[in-house]
């Protein structure tokens, strides 16, 4: 999958631009995630070969930062803001409702790969707390009902498309 891929040449070009410098690892990881969406073992190995250090070190850095995803995200992504303002305004209740309703845990995806539930530390819209991001769309001053309905609509829509 990695070999005959346009993304690969783009990544290699980017690494070359940074003159294979080890110090540019973070930039390269950002680029790789932008291209591939997440890191699997092959991608991490590839980066380590290009920069000439052990894969463990690349994994060490990638796993240290929350922003880098090491698992493939689902088709639809619900991101719950767990910033202080959202927490104070009761986002936990919405979060548990999503977990119960769609039978998945935070940080995980459903078995069919349709839905992922992620936590973010703050989207910076605290005045509209609690905030939930469904795919790219932000639901501000969110209520349990509105969010569940929105997700169901999304999943239902996806089902209708595939059937």
């Amino acid at each position, binding site marked *: 999958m990695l070999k005959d891929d346009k993304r690969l040449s783009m990544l290699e070009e980017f690494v070359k631009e940074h003159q294979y410098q080890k*110090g540019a690892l973070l930039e390269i*990881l*950002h680029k790789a995630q932008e291209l591939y969406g997440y890191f699997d073992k092959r991608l991490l190995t590839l980066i380590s070969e290009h920069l000439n250090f052990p894969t463990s070190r690349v994994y*060490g*850095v990638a796993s*240290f930062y929350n*922003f880098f995803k090491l698992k493939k995200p689902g088709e639809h992504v619900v991101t719950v803001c767990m910033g*202080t303002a959202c927490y104070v305004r009761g986002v936990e209740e919405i979060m548990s409702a999503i977990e119960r309703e769609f039978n998945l845990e935070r940080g995980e995806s459903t078995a069919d790969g349709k839905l992922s539930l992620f936590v973010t530390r703050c989207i910076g819209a*605290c005045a509209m707390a609690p905030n939930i991001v469904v795919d790219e769309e932000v639901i501000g001053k969110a209520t349990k009902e509105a969010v569940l309905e929105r997700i169901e609509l999304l999943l239902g829509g996806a089902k209708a498309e595939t059937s």
Partner: protein
Amino acid sequence: MKLAETELDLQRAYEHRINVCCSSGCVHFGALKVLKAFEDAIKEFVVQKECKVARTGCVGTCSVGPAVVVEPGDYLYQSITPEKAREIVRDHVVLGLPLKNLLYSNEVFFKKQRRLVLRNSGKIDPLRIEDYIAKGGYSALVKCLTKMSPQEVIDEVSVSGLRGRGGAGFQTGQKWNFVARAHGSPKYIVANLDEGDPGVFANRILAEADPHAIIEGMLVAAYAIGADKGYIYIRAEYPLAVQTLKKALEQATSLNLVGQNILETTFKFDVELRLGAGAFVAGEETAILASIEGLRAMPRPRPPYPATSGLWRKPTLIQNVETLANIPLIVLNGGEWFSRIGSPKCTGTKCFSLTGEINNPGLIEVPMGITLREVVFEIGGGVRDNRAFKAVLVGGPSGGCLPETLLDLQIDYESLTRAGAIMGSGGIVVIDDKSCMVDTAKFFIDFCVEESCGKCSPCRAGLLKVKRIFEGIMRGEGRMEDLLILEKSGVYIREASLCGLGQTAPNPVLTTLRYFRDEYASHIVDKVCPAGKCFKNEKEASRT
């Protein structure tokens, strides 16, 4: 500068200017559609020549976004939709009749604020350097390069009494002196925009609203300490701020304000953006250096301090972006002027993200020395839904929860630290009687456990131990002795941790124990949560 004059003439040609707040808060709620609607409407009513629509940064009233300001007169409209946008153009711009029912009517929100750092926020288009220059931007740089020696610049900053806005509150002038006198070259500047605190967004809004103020501050600092390379370290989670800064750097470079031979002098300074990747600890000054070098953001022991051995072991000045944005004002108006703002020991202003259960959440800037009561009850308009005030959390996840009795506390570094909180990066979260303080403290401990880099054991193992005790209390298995253990562990973690994260992580626990001990007691002795928040799952489980 000539450019300022041309731009001002250009702006004077318009009778009206409509500023649409397009910072990330308002954009989430449709500001870009509103912007488009205004552009369409001025065409529809054929007032393109009289009216300018500008995309600006944050006005501050984030709870009623998208916010729109119509100049002259600074009419602030709230919760604007594309339909309302058309009405504003029709009635206000064309007929000259402001729409009173759409105006933001809360005078108190702005009354006690003083906007220095946010001077241009909501007034200029951050994507146009001409707007910034027209407001006097980059004239501080010109003044430095033409009329002041580097030492004079440092002295001016020292006189101002400006202290680091990143949280620790170190004297900025003194820091500049250290780096200026340090041996080694090149010297670096790092602008810290790694605002990892959940619930804090002041730095991000500054970058989105007025990126050139940060860049100019860096340039002045570079001239003063003799640095030739700077990095702006910003969270990748802030895409709009990243784009805005990128564009600003391009424009500054094309006008020869950044790069080689700046403004035809021998002064040179390059600036590069570096993206963080969501690690709270990366805001710590030695961890940020590791991250820029492409490593895990783990702090290292000090000394040596970054001032003598920072990025790639060269002398490095690390400064929060809010500190930097103050610098042009100090250069232009003098340190004397700045030192008269705020309180004597703690000069200037501070930006806060004011959030939580409050009527007027938003981005505020207040003079130092203002009381918490003024911020919460006057600017913030008090607690939402007329509920009872319980606590105010100052300083982010490693800040402190302060009770009503401490509301008359003045906001400055020392008073906050004495009360058990910290200035931090400027988060104020109001908590009402619906929240349980034990649960709140646990929320922050969970956060710090997750974000601990794991290098030193007091923070790594100590916080985990604290977390376990909390879990016990919340299961109803707590003992009163646990509180003493919590207190002891908290002090131990605070004293023994390597960096700021560990040193401040116990603050929420220690302050809730100090001010809300009875809530802990009722969890432990009566197995009851006064706010009705904890023990809920068990109840639900036993019911089913």
